[in-house]
Structures are given as C-alpha cells and as structure tokens.
C-alpha cells in the first residue's frame, strides 16, 4: 500500500477489515521504507475507512511503526478513528501505548512542521484524563504556534466543547506516544521559528532538521528565529551549531535571531561569539514580529535573498525539457486538456499582469539545485484543482492548498525523470503565494528560463531558476 505524503506526514489508508490475516498484506516493511525515504516527520495509519479491527491486526501495524520510530525517531501512530475505536486501542495496549493517537488527521498536522503558517487565531481546546498527557499535548501545540486552552476536569471539557465554533480545534481522545526529538518548527509570515529548550549541547545537531532548514533557504526564506525562552544553558557545541548555521545561511543572505535566551547559566562570552558570527539576540518575540521596519530589514516581510546571485548553469539547462514535460504532463493530467507551449526565454521572471493570479514554487537540491515557479491565472488554478478537490471552489485557501499538492506532484515527477538520468535530487516542501508580487520579490530579478504556456486561451507561466 502506498502512503499519501503531505506536510511531512505519511498516511496509510487501509479500508474494510483488519485482522491478523489481512493486515500483513496491507502494510509491509517495503511500504514503510519507501515512505521513510520521502523524509517524513510522522507516519500514521488512518482508521477512517476501517470498519473492523482486532488486536492481531493492529499489532502488525504497531510492530512496523515502532521499528520505524526506533530507527529514525519518526513520530508514529493512528488517526481518524471514532470514540469506540479509541477506547478499543487504549484497552488493547494499556500502559504499553508507545505510539501516538490523533483523533483526526487535522489534529495530527498540528503536531508536525509545515510550510503553512498558523493563521487561525482561535485557541485549541485540549482535554485528556491524564494530567501529564494534557500538559504534553498543550506544550507541543504551543511550541508549534497554537494557543492551547487546557481543561482541568471532565465537567469543564464537557461544557466548553459544547461551543466548538469558539476553537480552532478540539483535541480529545488523542494521545502523544513517543515523540521524535526533532526541534519544533513553525512558520510565521515569512519567518521560520524553531523552538529549542533545555540544555543546548551536541545533541542539537542531531535534533535540528537541517534538510528542512536548507529547503527553507532554497525556497526563499531568509529570517530564522530560535525561540529560546525555555533554554537553560548551552555549551560550546551549541555555540558551534549556531555559528555554522549562520555561515551556511550567509550565501542566501539569511538572518538568524535568538529570542528570549538568558545568559544566567551560560558564559557571557558565548553571546559575543555568536554576535560576531552574525546572530542577533532579542529579548521578546514581539520585538521582531511586531516591528515592521525591522522585519522588513531582516527579510521577514517577504523578499528574497539579496546576496544570492546564482545563475542558470549548463547542468540545469540540459534538464529543462524534463522540467517542462513534467509540468505540461501534470497540467494535462489535472485538467484533462491540452497545454500549448508558446515561447521560451532566458530572462527575469516577467508577469505582465499580476492581479488575478496565484503562484506556487518548489525547490530541489542534490546533484543539481534550483527552484521551479508556476504562475497561474485564477481560472486555470481553479480548473487544475478540480480533480483533487472534486468540486469547483472560490475559496482561495483551498485553491492554494491544492496548488501546493499540484507542485508537489510536479516535483515528484521531475525527481523520477531525473533519476532515470542518474541525477539525484530531493524536493523541498511546496510554497504558495496568494500575491504574485511576493513570488517576484522572492525571485528578486534573478534570471531563469521562462516558458509561457497557453492553456485554453489563458497564459500559464513556468519559470526555472537557481
């Protein structure tokens, strides 16, 4: 069975009946390995379409998932179950419940990293009978930019959940098993915020998702903030980590800030060293996020790398037909109609009319590196989303979300095509832009190959750059 992978979560969706006889054929070690190779943070089995399961059936999945967790620290568990199924799982595993349980897929997404900003300003209602679970759920949500409200009793929860419209999500019948040690990450505007805590030593290098960080640089993020309110102290390994991060980001013009760090138990000269390496310290998060001038200066209000002047190279141009074919074929697949190539030019990204258009981008890195930008007229974007959404929609968030999946498909296809030529690349998480001016700012007048495609009389733009 293949997993659906989105926002670094791989989900298997078995259907029907799960028992000791049927489960081994549904999920195999090969399926797990193939999904793990896609650089995921969480792997779940959805029980949404499972009408019957027993312990023997679940055991098959649990064994595979726990092996994955031991090997890679990936968060593993189940999602999309009903109350009755949750009770059964608790009963089956009792104190041996080492995996996580998320009542819905949406709740699971709140516990992982994403390129999507937490835009919802409502709070999250949290309830679990076990106080330590309540706290764990709340802390993890908070570290990812949500605002949890923890109920202290069944009565309080029963009363509050009567008004679900007041909350972004109601988290109950969910359980955090063994979590990964990865540093929590969230996006705020055009800034990436990492939450670090405790003692920062050599472990930080293992726990920090460097590929995510590189992806973020590749797709144009230049402001990285470390939320260090909960950091007690750091040693020289921590200092080295931040120094190296600053050096690596210099090529992209990245700014790295540390917020809330006190140096009561950390040598003061470490701060000087880090400042010399280019890191900037702030007392409070709002000192950055609420200061628009400063935010703009640091790159957190959009805009791309000022120093990245990398241009197209022969390697990338040689692969251009593969990129274009992957895009055209995917467009045709999604819309069930023909796209016609109009012209190909090496130039800075030029969009005659930015109003009424949406854009998406995906970066790739490995044997070759660069970024693909797609600019859609709204009508073409809507049409290309219909197959995935199953209906016409005017909801921009739905369309942008689906465009992200769309470029993910293109990225996956490019990756597969390049692999045929023994060119190995990884793709970044996709990024979408409601405002085309934002993508123009990210591209920042760098030259690339622009291909204009005609799609039923409307222009669709493909742009490949380094």
């Amino acid at each position: 069975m293949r997993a659906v992978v989105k926002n670094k979560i791989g989900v298997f969706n078995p259907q029907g009946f799960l028992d000791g006889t049927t489960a081994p054929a549904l999920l195999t070690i090969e399926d797990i390995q193939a999904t793990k190779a896609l650089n995921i943070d969480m792997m779940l089995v959805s029980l949404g379409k499972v009408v019957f399961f027993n312990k023997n059936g679940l055991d098959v999945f649990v064994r595979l998932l726990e092996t994955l967790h031991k090997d890679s620290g990936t968060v593993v568990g189940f999602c999309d179950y009903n109350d009755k199924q949750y009770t059964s799982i608790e009963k089956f595993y009792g104190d041996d419940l080492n995996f996580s349980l998320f009542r819905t897929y949406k709740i699971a997404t709140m516990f992982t990293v994403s390129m999507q900003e937490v835009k919802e300003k409502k709070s999250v209602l949290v309830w679990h009978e076990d106080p330590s679970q309540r706290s764990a759920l709340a802390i993890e949500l908070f570290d990812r930019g949500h605002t949890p409200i923890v109920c202290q009793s069944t009565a309080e929860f029963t009363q509050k959940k009567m008004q679900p419209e007041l909350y972004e999500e109601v988290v109950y019948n969910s359980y955090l098993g063994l979590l990964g040690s990865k540093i929590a990450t969230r996006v705020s505007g055009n800034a990436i915020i990492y939450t670090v805590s405790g003692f920062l030593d050599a472990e930080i290098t293992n726990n920090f998702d460097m590929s995510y960080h590189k992806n973020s640089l590749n797709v144009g993020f230049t402001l990285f903030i470390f939320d260090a309110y909960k950091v007690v102290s750091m040693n020289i390994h921590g200092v080295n980590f931040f120094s190296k991060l600053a050096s690596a980001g210099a090529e992209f013009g990245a700014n790295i800030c540390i917020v809330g760090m006190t140096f009561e138990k950390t040598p003061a000269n470490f701060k000087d060293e880090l400042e010399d390496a280019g890191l900037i310290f702030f007392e409070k998060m709002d000192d950055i996020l609420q200061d628009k001038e400063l935010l703009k200066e640091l790159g957190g209000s959009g805009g791309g790398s000022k120093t990245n002047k990398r241009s197209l190279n022969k390697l990338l141009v040689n692969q251009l037909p593969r990129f274009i074919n992957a895009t055209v074929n995917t467009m045709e697949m999604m819309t069930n109609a023909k796209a016609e190539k109009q012209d190909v030019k090496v130039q800075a990204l030029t969009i005659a009319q930015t109003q009424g258009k949406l854009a998406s981008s995906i970066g790739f890195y490995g044997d070759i590196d660069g970024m693909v930008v797609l600019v859609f007229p709204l009508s073409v974007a809507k049409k290309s989303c219909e197959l995935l959404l199953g209906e016409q929609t005017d909801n921009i968030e739905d369309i942008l979300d689906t465009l992200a999946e769309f470029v993910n498909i293109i990225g996956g296809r490019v990756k597969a095509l390049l692999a045929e030529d023994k060119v190995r690349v990884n793709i970044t998480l996709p990024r979408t832009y409601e405002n085309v001016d934002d993508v123009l700012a990210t591209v920042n007048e760098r030259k690339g190959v622009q291909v204009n495609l005609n799609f039923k009389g409307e222009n669709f733009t493909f742009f490949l750059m380094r």
Partner: protein
Amino acid sequence: MITQEEIHDYINAIPPSPTVLKAVLACIQKGELAKAADEAAKDPALKLFLQGIVNKPIYGFKNDIKDLKQIFGILGLAQAEQIIYNYMISLLTPTKWELFSLTNKEFSQIQDSLSFAWKKILEHKEINDRSVFSSISLLPASIIVCEALFKAKHDELDLLRSVKEIDYNTILKRLSGMDLFDLCAKIAEVWEMPEPIAQIILASSGKTQQTDPQITELSKWMHLLFFYQLSQPICTAAGLNDFIEFNIEYVQDIYEAFQDVVM
C-alpha cells in the same frame, strides 16, 4: 488522463453476449435445466468452467463431476444463472493484468468468494429472486473496467495518489462524469441482464441513492461484502484494497448482522 472518447470507445468495445450463453440463459429463465445443459455443451470453454466450479472443495464432492446435466442439477436454477453471468464477466478479463497484481485464476477466486458469501446473505434475508442472486456476478466487473481504463496511466495515478487519498472510481467520475459502476451498468445493458442487477450494482457503490428500499438494503450488504472481500489477502496483495472508496457510514447499521452472517 481519461477522455470521454476513451470511455465511449470502451463501451463500444464491450462484445455482445455470445449466442450460446444467451441460449443457456433463456433455458434457465424457462426453468429448463436439462436443455440449458445441452446448450452449454456447445461451448467447450463454458463446459470446462462449469466443471471447474462444481469440483471446487466448497461443494465437497468426493469424485469429479463431469456430466453437464448433473452439474446443472446440482447448481439449481438460481446458482446456475449466477455462474453463467460469472462466466460472462470472466470473458472480459485481460490476458495480462497490469494495474493490479492479479491472475485470472485469482480473479475467479474473488468471484467465487463473493458468490458464496452473497448466497449466505440472501439466505439470511430469505430472498429467492434470481436476478438479485445473479447481481453479485457484475460486481467484480468494476475491477476489470478499472484495469482496462487505467492500466496505461499507472505512473500518473501513482503520483496523484501519493499526494491525495483519491480512489480510481472518484478520479474517473471527476474526469468523465461516469464512474466504474456506471460502466458496469452499461455492461449489464449491453448483455441484456435483468434490470435489478444494474440497479443493485449502481447502488452498491455507496454513492447512488435508490428509491426502492429493498435495493438500498441489498446494496448496503453488497457494499460491505465487497470491502470484506477487498480486505482479504488475495485482494490486498493485488493492490485492490483502496481502488474504490469505502463508505463506512453507508453500512454502519448492517455491520453487526453482517458479522453474524458472513464472518
């Protein structure tokens, strides 16, 4: 990915039901099993198919039964009709399966399992209608139609399904306005199968509402039975578990009774 023209080409390519089969079915409709056996003897492949069915372990005969009249006698009218329809559907199976990892022998096993369980269900519900009995034969046709339409699009489908949980039936419906069950109903139409067969099949997708309460009730049982079958190792190994979407809410009220009757 799939155009309207491809759908029309597929429908037009459905062969008419062979003359021998029409004659066998006509005899069964009249209740003349001996004559049906005589007609069936004219088609060696059908004869072999029937011998293969009756001599399977589930029938429990110690010795091989070769005589067609005897075979029709053992089967009885309703089961004979159903098996003739199973045979008709098997004529549509591809020589080589590409989308699903199946062999024709495995496909035949799926047909048999469904027929066997469907018989139990109808006995439980005390339904003797031959059309209803035969309707299960058409259900596996959805697998054949899916194989035929999507086998050349394997890579595209894999990519699409890697980012979104979307089944073949939904993809086809969104692209062409018709789904696999609509195409099965077309097959029933071309093969002049009794009308209730197509109606039950359409409703068994779990997505089409029917006004007839009996058809709705039967379609729930068929929907759940299909997913019970699609959860079996033979189907999961073939990649069939998620080829169409299971509508769990649709079958919630019959689930416990299903457990008692089938599992």
